[in-house]
């Protein structure tokens, strides 16, 4: 892979403060034969080991960036979670920093009450979408947090869709509403 490759992000991780995985996504260049893939982080067991060591190394160390086992690592520690982004050693540090900020800030935008473990777990689908909109197979897809956030949909609303067919007239609508209301009342009783 030459330096000009767009595959610059190697992994995005969200770990809790014991180093256990909340989310982990390791990127591999797609459509490359298995045996040609390199890097030691292929098996899940090895990945989890790596995450534990990484968490140990970064816990309570407010340094934002470090080199760990041949990866450039960017991270941000919150109350009970830490966000990570891993890139290759040859990549431009500021570019990776921007990708990381995009990831971090977009989470900030979509998780209304701040980044913490419970919030991430409750809005796991949105977090995944945000990551998916930031990095695609290791390619940095977008670096503007607002753009990323604008592309992340909220879960569908609770109400089953009530589609009114106006052809049936107002009476039909009234009948529909009445039956619904009755249903609700019965349910609540």
């Amino acid at each position, binding site marked *: *892979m*030459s*330096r*000009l*490759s*767009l595959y610059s992000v190697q992994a995005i991780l969200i770990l809790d403060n014991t180093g256990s*995985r909340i*989310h*982990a996504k390791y990127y591999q260049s*797609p*459509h490359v034969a298995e045996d040609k893939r390199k890097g030691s982080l292929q098996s*899940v067991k090895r*990945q*989890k080991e790596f995450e534990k060591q990484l968490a140990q190394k970064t816990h309570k*160390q*407010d*340094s*934002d*960036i470090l*080199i*760990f*086992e*041949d990866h450039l690592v960017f991270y941000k520690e919150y109350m009970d979670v830490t966000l990570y982004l891993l890139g290759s*050693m*040859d990549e*431009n*540090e*500021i*570019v*990776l*920093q*921007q990708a990381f900020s995009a990831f971090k800030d977009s989470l900030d*935008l979509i998780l209304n009450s701040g980044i913490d473990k419970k919030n991430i*777990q*409750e809005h*796991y*689908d949105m977090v*995944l*979408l945000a990551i*998916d909109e930031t990095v*695609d*197979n290791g*390619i*940095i*897809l*977008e*670096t*503007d947090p*607002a*753009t990323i*956030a*604008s*592309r*992340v*949909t909220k*879960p*569908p*609303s*609770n109400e*089953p869709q009530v589609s009114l067919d106006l052809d049936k007239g107002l009476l039909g609508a009234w009948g529909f509403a009445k039956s619904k209301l009755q249903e609700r009342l019965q349910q609540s009783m």
Partner: protein
Amino acid sequence: MSTHTYKKFENSEAGELPDKMTIYQDCMSEFNESPINAKRCRLLISRLLRLLAQGETFPENEATALFFSISKLFQHQNDSLRQAVYLAIKELSGISQDVLMATSSIMKDIQNGSDLVKPNAIRSLTAVLDESTAFSAERLLKSALVNKHPSISSAALCTSYNLLPIAEVTVKRFANETQEAVADLKSFPHRNLVGDYYPNSTFISQYHALGLLYQLKKNDKMALLKLIRQFSSNNALKNQLAKIELVKLVSELVTRDNQLFSDFQPLLMEWLSNKYESVQLETAKLVTNFAAHHSRLVSSELIASAITTLQSLLTVPRVSAKFAALRILNRISMVSPERIVVCNPELESLINDPNRNISTYAITTLLKTGTAKNIASLISTITKFIHDVSDDFKIIIIDAVRSLSLNFPNEWKTVLQFLIDVLKNGEGGFKFKNNVVEALIDLVTFIPQAKEMALENLCDFIEDCEFNEILVRILHLLGKEGPSTSNPSLYVRHIYNRVVLENSIIRSAAVIALSKFALTKNDPSLSDSIVSLLRRIANDPDDEVRDRATIALKFIESAKRDQDTESRKFILSTYSFDFASLESKLSSYISSNTDSFKTPFDVTSVRRLSDGDIKALDLKRKQGKFLKGTLEGSAESTPGIAEEEMLPERLDNSYVGPSVDEHELDMLSTKYAEELMAIDQVKDFGALVNSSKIVPLTEPEAEFVVRGVKHLFKDNVVFQFNITNTLTDTALEGVSVTCTPELEASSLQELFTISIDQLLPSAEAACYVAFKKTEEIVMESFLANLMFTTKEINPETNEPFAGDEGFQDEYDIDSISLNAGDYIKSSYVGDFATAFDGLPNEEVAVFNIKENISLQELVDRLVVNTSCLPLEDTQYAPSDSNSHTVKLFGKSALKGSKVALIIRLIKTSKGIAMKAQGRAEDAVLCSDLVNGLM
């Protein structure tokens, strides 16, 4: 509802996931439900993805079933559910079968979906398409590529990029559209905003388009040059990442063709003051990196302003920028520290940076810029805070100090004081202490003046050392170095203390160390005391200790009785085995065992290294390591070379400079010996004496790439030609190399040629030409010619067409010559001046080099040509001076006689004047070497 159950309920919603089977069942039932409950489905998908992200996986049939039921959700037109579906499709496609069935639904979305889901749909194509179906997306991708919506365009570009390995032909047809996408500045439409956020286009699709465009045109140099011309002017690129991609493109081009650099200088100068820090950084990286290899081609203003740019980046608030600039400076400091002395004030202020990574980098960089003058003050700065950093950082600092000590041997006192201080007073784990001890061992080995003081302090240290491994190493060192010191009895006392106080592992190490003192020359009276000590130890409760003591006693006795050299050798071993080759020999012995180990292992076939050889190898490895630099315990690879390209690149580079990974060379020579010994005719030549480094005989981009290696035997010479066929459609048959001596009266007699039967496209094979030497040292050049028959390849069978007779052809390659350096192995000597003066035969020669090369390049060439080891750090020519002296030391590969060279270089406007003064034990070798330098 009790609080307990309430809590449990909450957990099932957020914290703990239900088990895998439950999720699977839930998904299967819910996804097949009709009508589809969008909210419930998205929740289940989210759970499923969480499960997968934990590392769980499903058996293939279950995954396929899941995939199938998820694709049913395409019926529901809710965008928010659809986005989740695409995520699931991408995750599951890796583990399930029949992923193609989703293709038509996805393509429908690409055509008719909302702007929100279109990008998701396009990007999921990467996961579902394969080699045979990729072409079907051509039309869709092409139109999406030119779509005005930036997200859609980016998605299409990334997908095309991802599909490249399997659909190159298809993607190549997008070249024009991609080109358009780079130039086109796309912004988000202001209507139809879905969420609460206002997207702000960063024009990142330019970056994706440029990345793809490079992949499409990477083999076309002219097209790439045109790209740079087109997009570097007029602010055509708005996106920062795209600009960096352009810088990298320049970097790629100048690495391929060094001469292009001067054309790019103005552009690079401009980029160094670009408004984006990242562009400045990337450009500075390029310039300094290029300057490290081809300093002659880079103007000094450009380097200076690159350094100034880095210097200003050191003071920005952003951590990543500081970190990045430090990394580059650190790298420069390893090759030409004098260049970055200007940054010292900034570096010094960063020592106390709250970010430990930054402060450590700053310190190690400072230590490398250190000169004989400021070492003392630097070390006192470090001493102040080394006790309150973590072990990892301590180790890095110790490593830096260690290389410093090797570079400035005269400053050993300060360094030694520092090391002893941290060893005795520092708190730290095994790794840290071990590192300090290793640094001290280095001092003892390479700086003779420091030896006694360091040893004495190590003696004190072992009195209360808690780590067995370190104790054993120190005892070994005491045994090795102690007997030759002025007062050996001091060490005997310390060692014997260990025998009395420690456990059996240490006792046995101490016994061996003690026995070495019995034969010391400095204090003959010691021998008797050692014998009586060993007698006492012979009653030790541990059998290993007893055995060692008894054996040692026997050896000492017989050594004293009849000056028996054999037992003397056992006590004071003068050589050790080359471990790499010992390992490979042993493993092949075990695996090729046919007679249940009746034939004993032949230990004589393993390369033996004398003390001097080991030191030379060690020092070389250290110089190499120093050059490459290690930080945080991980090998910082040289920039510009991605891992995959590392290996061939390294081999190619092995002739340019001393920066080769010596270990790999060791392995190579073992490999050569094995390959050669597999040839029957070569077996008769006896043992392989020496192999040269790899010499390229063609341009690296030639149709047939040939690289030569010269192997030396006692009475024979074998040339090995490694030939690579880079043609894609032609096989070579009967490949051989003819070598014609340049001189008529050759003292070499050609014996035989071993040719290659068949060389398929992109295969590599070796052919050999063997000669008999009539004199001991022969130096000659040979005109070499590649002879072969070309045959066209049948693309279906990958074999040449049957009945094709092919064309006889030949191909000129560079001449290969045997020179004096091929007869020399590098070797180490602690005190160069004395060793030089002690050699009997002298030869002086003066050369005038008209070529326009830098001193450094000349020094590199000298080191390679002579195969000697540069000593006293003379392999780096200062870039700010016009003169330099190189000190080289080596040994004859045939007889082991010593050779030393002092080469003085002066650079003037007319070229480089060189005066070489050589001294050697062997007069012929000396004059051959000195006169054949250039």
